[in-house]
């Protein structure tokens, strides 16, 4: 009886002491999500049954970094969707704080730029919080292993926001090329300057 009590006490302490998670780390399993796409249809991560993984990118219309990277995001999907790693973009921004990121403007953006990949709205911002997304564009590559999606890369697209031709490291391409060849990813976490996500006021 005493042992059981001690065990319970220890368990309570352990649970209480567990740090609050600030989003996914490398190796974490991603909880499934279902969000509305610009065409009005709902899309879930679990819909990607035949993919080897998904390039999840938190992105928006208004951020100058998102604009700088827009053509590179389109190019990533064009290059890797057929190889099993399609792009899924998610807009996390609160449209009351960033009117240019409203659903209507997302629809416009996807149409204008000819998106062939989903551009989802995270209205409740729960998915963005679960991932631990902080800025736009913020990339999370998830790999499909035994019906689960595991985080294998978090960070930037490459190391040169302004000038694509000056890029020395293409982090996302390196990671996926590595995955496709069964090689370990050299940089699993990278950082870049970006626009902070416009969170709803608590």
């Amino acid at each position: 009886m005493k042992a059981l009590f001690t065990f319970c006490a220890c368990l309570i302490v352990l649970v209480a002491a567990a740090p609050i998670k600030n989003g996914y780390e490398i190796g974490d399993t991603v909880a499934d999500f279902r969000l509305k796409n610009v065409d009005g249809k709902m899309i879930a991560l679990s819909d990607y049954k035949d993919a080897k993984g998904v390039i999840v990118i938190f992105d928006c219309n208004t951020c100058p970094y998102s604009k700088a990277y827009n053509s590179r995001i389109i190019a990533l999907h064009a290059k890797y969707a057929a190889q099993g790693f399609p792009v899924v973009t998610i807009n996390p921004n609160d449209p009351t704080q960033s009117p240019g990121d409203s659903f209507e403007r997302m629809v416009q953006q996807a149409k204008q730029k000819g998106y062939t990949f989903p551009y989802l709205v995270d209205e409740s911002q729960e998915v963005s919080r679960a991932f631990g997304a902080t800025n736009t564009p913020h990339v999370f590559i998830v790999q499909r292993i035994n019906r689960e999606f595991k985080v294998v890369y978090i960070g930037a697209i490459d190391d040169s926001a302004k000038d694509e031709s000056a890029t020395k490291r293409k982090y996302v391409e390196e990671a996926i090329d590595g995955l496709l060849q069964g090689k370990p990813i050299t940089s699993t976490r990278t950082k870049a300057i970006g626009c902070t996500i416009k969170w709803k006021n608590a």
Partner: protein
Amino acid sequence: MTRLFRSPRPIEQSPGKLAVRIVLFLVWLSCTPGFGQSADLIRLSQLQESIQDEKDRIQVINFWATWCGPCIKELPLFEKLHAERKDVRVRLVSVDLDLDPNPEKVRSFATRKKLKAEVLILDERNPNEWIEKVDKTWSGAIPATLIVNNRNGKRKFVERALQEGELEKLIAEIQ
């Protein structure tokens, strides 16, 4: 070459030209340090050294950019702090060069907004190499603010926009 700069008539004879000269002089004056903002370029290592060297005052270092709406919205808080607290050294470090290699945009912005706190332009190219050196927890999103007290070694790092009165609170916490 000298002919290009020689006036056909002496300047004194033309009051209009004199006025132009005065205006040009004022424009030049407004571009010089002390009048407007010089907004010098600085490498991260230089900034880090300078942060370490400041022993007397508490330091507030704000990372911002001219394209960043939330950053511009909170700039008045730093200006107010700079005006009111002589025991605090405020520096506004622009990260604009990452997207736009021309520093003049930052300088004209600082002059136009009449920023009085010291403006610096971070002269770094590879964010993945320097972001962690500012603070390990920083994802790179701006605005971000670092507050340092070298007298007791305490520091705070905040990766979000600040509210009115929050800076004073954060400073009090590391005093």
